């Protein structure tokens, strides 16, 4: 089971800055464990950001993203009180969605 994300969305100028911290192993599939066996790849493949239910950004991620990834983006025309939701899907099919309110 996945741990919750930390999402912070703050008004800045006419838009908002959204910062997201995700909890994920992000295994590349290239590392080997102590017994010499390859650790299978396990990473986020897609993230979707939505503002009040409407998709505003999607990103395709791969093995080059660090463990416990952090992402930041700016949303034009987001106002205080708007709802931001972030979802990710990983290559095992696990999903997670968390929400935050722009402050």
């Amino acid at each position: 089971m996945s741990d919750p994300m930390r999402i912070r969305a703050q008004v800045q100028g006419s838009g908002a800055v959204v910062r997201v911290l995700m909890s994920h192993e992000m295994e590349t599939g290239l590392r080997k464990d102590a017994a010499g066996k390859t650790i299978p790849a396990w990473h986020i493949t897609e993230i979707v950001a939505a503002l009040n239910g409407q998709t505003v950004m999607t990103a395709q991620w791969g093995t080059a993203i660090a463990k416990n990834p952090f992402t930041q983006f700016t949303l034009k025309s987001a106002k205080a009180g708007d709802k931001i939701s972030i979802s990710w899907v990983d290559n095992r099919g696990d999903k997670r969605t968390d929400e935050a309110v722009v402050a």
Partner: protein
Amino acid sequence: MRRRALAFALVAAAFAWPGAQAQTGTADGIAQYRALLADGNPAELWEAKGELLWKQKRGPKNVSLEGCDLGQGAGVVKGAFVELPRYFADTKRVQDLESRLLSCMEAQQGFNAAEIAATPFGRGEQLNLEALVAYVSAASRGMKFRLPQARAEERQMFEAGKRIFYFRAGPYDFSCASCHGEAGKRIRLQELPDLTRNPGDGVGYAAWPAYRLSSGELWGMQRRLNDCYRQQRFPFPGYASDATIALATFMGVKSQGSVSIAPSIKR
């Protein structure tokens, strides 16, 4: 992963400070790299998990840790970290945060403390301890260390810690003081804090627990000390042992008055 992160930092630094590259020293470069990372410190994920664990009913007795006394009264988390290690009347021991959490987990939740202490770092209940350590230390972020030294037991721990700190032994004839006994030393690019005095706010003792980028793990003081001993080629005195608590007391009292930034972020 470390190389990737470093490469990113160098690229970012090159864009952000194009003209300043020639003048800034290596230490400044590392400070800039840390500042870039501090905004998204994954230690926050451990803090969140720790808060849930603190309130969750767990263990054979199925109770939460909200009745745990960390020195400020039962269930009080804020301000507890900066006054540890301290003497606890119920266990008749001077305890640091991790050994105190173990005592609470045993006395209240019914866990086997010795079993958890013997578990390798980063496995089983040790993972939960990391999260609890992050949560409790974060509740004292920005506060100054003020370890109590009123009791004879606490002063004795300080004295014992001092001796351990200066004790030279092992195949390299190293002591803690070999690396941390004077200012301006470093290992490769890592600056070593002088732990015999207050090295400043958020440096040395005041920077741990911390998230280690290179391993993607959250390290408490026990794990930090374990790694220092490994580098000295000493056997580790044992998780939550009196020797490690004595060392923590020595370092904590020496950095009295410094501001804790724990859980911080380290390369």
